[in-house]
């Protein structure tokens, strides 16, 4: 069955015609051309298709697009302002927390949701929360440092504002 869904994607109102069998990943990539949302494992284990669903990380590869109706989706494209990088992206660049970068959008969004929920995380909390995002270039130590760098940047920008 086809249906029209209204949802918010990266702060913009969108109306999409989707099939009931479409995943949110299909809709975001094929209709809205949001190429940062990437399918890898296809079963929710790797995190490369992570998007924020009302601010919480989900795997868009097995979430039905029809179920996103009325909700707010954020992809990596929605993090920066289109010109400057988001502070979490900056932290990933500075710490060289990427190599091939296929997994990076999923990591950055996961870190965004994580720092929103745990502004002062323990090392254990960082490892536990990020354990569902896989990086096959094995840059975990750099990614861990990027989370701490991102945390400092977020704190700094809060102090300034």
């Amino acid at each position, binding site marked *: *069955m086809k249906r029209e869904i209204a949802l918010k994607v990266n702060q913009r109102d969108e109306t999409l015609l989707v*099939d*009931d*069998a*479409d*995943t949110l990943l*299909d809709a975001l990539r094929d209709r809205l051309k949001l190429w940062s949302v990437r*399918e890898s494992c*296809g*079963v*929710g*284990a790797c*995190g490369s298709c*992570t998007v924020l*669903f009302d601010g*919480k*990380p*989900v*795997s868009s*590869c*097995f*979430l*039905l697009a*029809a*179920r996103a109706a009325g909700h707010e989706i954020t992809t990596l494209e929605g993090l920066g302002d289109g010109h400057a990088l988001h502070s979490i992206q900056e932290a990933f660049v500075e710490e060289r927390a990427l190599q091939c970068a296929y997994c990076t959008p999923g990591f950055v969004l*996961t870190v965004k949701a994580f720092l929103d929920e745990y502004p002062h995380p323990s090392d254990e909390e960082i490892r536990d*929360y990020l*354990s*569902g*995002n896989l990086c096959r270039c094995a840059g975990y130590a750099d990614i861990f440092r990027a989370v701490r760098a991102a945390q400092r940047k977020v704190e700094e920008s809060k102090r300034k504002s």
Partner: protein
Amino acid sequence: MTIRSFDLLQPRSLPEAVEMLAKHGDDARALGGGTTLIILMKQRALYYRYLVDLQTIPGLADIKSEADGVRVGALVTHRTMEQSAVIRQAFPVVAEAFSHIGNVRVRQTASVGGNLAHADYRLDPPPALLVLGAEITAFGPKGLRTIPLKDFFRDMYETALEPGELLVDVKIPSLPANSRAVYLRYTALSANDWPCLGVAAYLTKENGRCKELRVALGGVAATPLLMDGLEFANDQSLDSDVIDKLLEKVDEQISPFADLRGSEWYKRRMARVFVKKAVEQVKSWQ
């Protein structure tokens, strides 16, 4: 990978959902969080012409405190179980069991009802809920009924739910005074994987001795199992003789089979190790 076309039906009430399931019979299936069903359909291991979306029914995602326990709606997510102040305070063992499933995204999506109704043999919540004496509420063409969780799991991926019947909620009864429960999961592969096995132990103490001991295991038979015949431990101090007898009882009742996470022999050994560990943990609590 794409999913073969299907229709997502979105009922507004339980009777409407049951009517849809009755109308479409084997062509329809209830959809909870979708973490398992959608993936299996994507892999083309399963196909249903109609999915009945339970998320559109109001009230199924609530956690309600009642006089004698807590009622958890079928659509409550794993992440909510992990973080809910009510669950963490009343049943920390349940919050613990839900907190290690998959990853944070899976827990954000997967539902309590879906987890139980899927009836996989190695899931984490069933052992914890079994030792607490949880009960399922089901709603179907014949109305509402309750099913003790220990009678709910019938076989691999098979439950006591009748065709067209829905799991509505899980009632967890309040713990008596001087009771404590733990859940230990043992993973043979990565931390995000299904466990090789999981063990829950529950102990009520009286005058420093065991008043009641319950033990349940996941991953060591076609269904999660609540151990029978543990009354011998009542009024004992759970010393090594009692624990040895318990381990024999466990070994008699489990029937593990080899999978990616271990051979039958290995799982029998690990069951002994983790049952002992779990009982020692509940015992040492003051």
